[in-house]
């Protein structure tokens, strides 16, 4: 078999990596190469260097080390039984690509994942070697995100956390039962144990050592995970319960939701549906409500329909329409927790409202200038010169927000 060129390998191994949604390059500690030693910088905020026509940002060089894999996960393009073309990068090739792309300002850094070859330890140690060479031999100060392989040895994960800004491991499916049926070689328990291990090491590294008061670094940009939406029959409420469990147990930075999408040479056990992109979007909105708006899964579920989020309107609006007794809210008096529950008001706008109302009573035009989305908010608030009056009593309030129903095709 002829040796593949680096371009051919790149085509295969980026095609194989695109089903991972995460491309975040944020919350790394500040580093730079202004002193002329090495290259690269991170300044907290992530940068998206390009956008693909699928609307997803391209921030990192997201590739697999190899798409050879001994596992047979039904949803995965790289499963052992798939007939896709296979390739494998050498450590040097990945390092070279990362650095040359970085120098031309195409990327913020590297997101390296891999199929499982031989054993978890073999795979993990190769990935760690890429990160080590980048950091130590090339003085690379850009962003590195490594996938951790479940059941890899502790020393390898320790070393990975030393060089990587973020570690992640995908739970892949919302329930243990679906994982067992679609990914027979994966084990939900060992995935959770790996995430638990990362949290423990992060907390350990945050404790000052006895010798010096400096804390050590372990994956300073935290850990994340991804799960596939729409491949199994789990409801949105089930998915959100799972996310809450992951956030509270392992202090994840992010749970990514990835709408199940058709893959080449698909397994016949899964339906090749149109990816449920709107459902994915609503899950992200609900996830935000959980993390930043003080909502519980039960509250979000109260606005859902048999555990499925309303696709026509956002989950906060859906909840508020079911809680008409709590509205309208007076924006000049209500506390932050209540303001966070008003549709059309985001956390930043609310911070501005709280500052501005110390000096004056806010009216409708003031709220607009502060950035509130009054189209959604106006039925739920009282302001100095605004009362929703009949608006909030309307039975058909939802229809003001939902897009008009489409006429069904006659064919």
């Amino acid at each position, binding site marked *: 078999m002829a040796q593949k060129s680096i371009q051919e390998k790149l085509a295969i191994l980026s*095609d194989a990596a695109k089903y991972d949604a995460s491309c975040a390059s944020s919350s790394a500690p500040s580093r730079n190469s202004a002193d002329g030693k090495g290259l690269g910088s991170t300044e907290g905020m992530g940068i998206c260097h390009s956008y693909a*026509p699928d609307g997803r940002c391209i921030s990192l060089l997201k590739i697999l080390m190899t798409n050879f894999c001994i596992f047979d996960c039904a949803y995965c393009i790289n499963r052992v039984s798939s007939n896709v073309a296979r390739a494998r990068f050498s450590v040097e090739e990945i390092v070279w690509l990362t650095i040359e792309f970085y120098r031309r300002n195409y990327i913020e850094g590297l997101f390296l994942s891999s199929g499982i070859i031989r054993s978890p330890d073999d795979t993990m140690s190769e990935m760690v070697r890429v990160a080590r060479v980048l950091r130590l031999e090339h003085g690379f100060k850009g962003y590195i995100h490594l996938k951790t392989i479940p059941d890899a040895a502790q020393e390898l994960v320790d070393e990975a956390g030393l060089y990587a800004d973020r570690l992640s491991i995908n739970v892949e499916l919302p329930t243990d039962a679906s994982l067992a049926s679609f990914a027979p070689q994966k084990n939900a328990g060992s995935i959770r144990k790996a995430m638990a291990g990362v949290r423990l090491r992060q907390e350990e590294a945050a404790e000052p050592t006895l010798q010096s008061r400096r804390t050590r670094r372990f994956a300073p940009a935290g850990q994340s995970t991804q799960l596939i939406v729409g491949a199994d029959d789990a409801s949105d409420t089930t998915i959100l319960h799972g996310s809450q469990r992951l956030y509270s147990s392992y202090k994840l930075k992010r749970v990514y939701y990835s709408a199940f999408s058709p*893959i080449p040479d698909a397994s016949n056990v899964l339906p090749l549906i149109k990816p449920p992109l709107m459902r994915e979007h609503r899950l992200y909105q609900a996830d935000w409500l959980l993390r930043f708006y003080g909502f519980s899964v039960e509250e979000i579920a109260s606005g859902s329909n048999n555990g499925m989020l309303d696709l026509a309107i956002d989950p906060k609006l859906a909840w508020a329409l079911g809680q008409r007794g709590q509205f309208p809210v007076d924006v000049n008096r209500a506390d932050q927790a209540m303001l966070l529950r008003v549709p059309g008001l985001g956390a930043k706008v609310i911070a501005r409202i709280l500052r501005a109302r110390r000096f004056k009573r806010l009216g409708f035009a003031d709220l607009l200038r502060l950035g509130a989305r009054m189209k959604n908010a106006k039925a739920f608030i009282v302001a100095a010169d605004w009362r929703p009056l009949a608006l909030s009593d309307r039975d058909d309030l939802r229809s003001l927000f939902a897009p008009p129903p489409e006429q069904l095709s006659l064919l």
Partner: protein
Amino acid sequence: MSAVLERVLLPRLGFAAAWREAARGLLLRRVPPEQVDWQRADDSPGLPLFGANADTPVIGDEEFRMPRVLLGLIEDVLCANVPDRFSLPYRAVWRAQAERHLLGDESDPDMARVRVLSKLVHRDAHKMKAFVRFCEEASHGDRRAFAAWFEPDHFIVEATAPFFARRFGDVDWRIETPSGCAVCTNGALRFSAETQKPAALADPTEDLWRTYYTNIFNPARLKVKAMQSEMPKKYWKNLPEAGLIPGLVASAEQRVIAMRGAEATLPAARSLRMEPYQQPAAMAGDVAPDRRDLEQQILDCTRCLLHCNATQAVRGEGPDRAAIMVVGEQPGDQEDLAGSPFVGPAGRELDAAFAAAGLDRASTFVTNAVKHFKHSMRGKRRIHERPGISEIVACKWWLEQEVALVRPRIIVALGATASLAVIGNGTAITARQGQIEQSLFGPPVIVTGHPAAILRMPEAAHADRLRHELAGALRTASRAV
């Protein structure tokens, strides 16, 4: 009679510093905003930098207010490509002298516009950091050299170029724009109003980048609008990958149809060869075979619902045979993560008690009445919940087998849950503290408080009493064996 207009001319380069200096002078002389005519030098060539009234005497010498937050916003507004880029910031600073509340009130029209312009400029600068594409050029020294052409909407090059200097410290680079360029040589950054569009920028690495761009795109999730809102068409002409977009969009639907239409193929031949590698590794460890079986069964336990939200069951730890067995309530947050009993804060209290009693923890078998962590989830935290009767009863199955395996001569029951599981009575622990009772499993039991109670005790004296009692119970146990 209207006041004489004071004209201020600002240079093309270094306008931010020049504006600050001019504004300071104007404020000191109490020149109101409506009397200042701000101009950019190249808009009215031939005029001196400052207007005719610049020698008006300074009135008073008291300090004026230039709040730091406002200064930050002003730096942005000065870069905006709008007619009021210089006058709006001066009016804001002028008003901030008298109106103390101005800064907090972003519903004020001036402040709202400052915020909007600041956001515009930030976005433009952010897009510059994102969309500048360097091409390698011939180098004249031993450092590699790169060049880029970029067309920003606002006057952001001076403010944004230092970002590239921090990022590409080990090479020389230049970014040319229609209104001037930033050049970084040997780490020194300089700006010039002259511009030199590099002729035919191209770099062979762009082919690899285009390969990457083509293959990272998922045709099944076409969302062209989402892409364009973040990467508007005006940037496309300078992005090497943008030429691919029309083709990728046009062929997306066909590619998805082809994927759907394809018949499922036979599994690749290699998949059969891989079967032996797919088996999970057997549990490691050098424990006795019957103990290993028991531990595996505990790990797999689904006798009650607690396994649903826990990371793992936490088995007892200690030698295969131990004279003393210590039974706690249930694993906590830390124990659930680590998979070992008593490693969190309560575990440290227990370790201290072992030390005070002169007993080696490693010689005893330490376990819990309930093997999974019972908790409720609140935001980013897990709150401990006391296990209920049904969970204690379900889990007694395992405790009984651990006792049968380890055959302790005495058991130390820590707290109410452990006493309920081991003795069948979990009430009035304070009164029974230090008592030796009969366990349901055979060996005698010493009842004492749980180390977590020490942590909850607000008064130091009470906490010390509990510590003393706990160490005392362990000491009694070690004397009894």
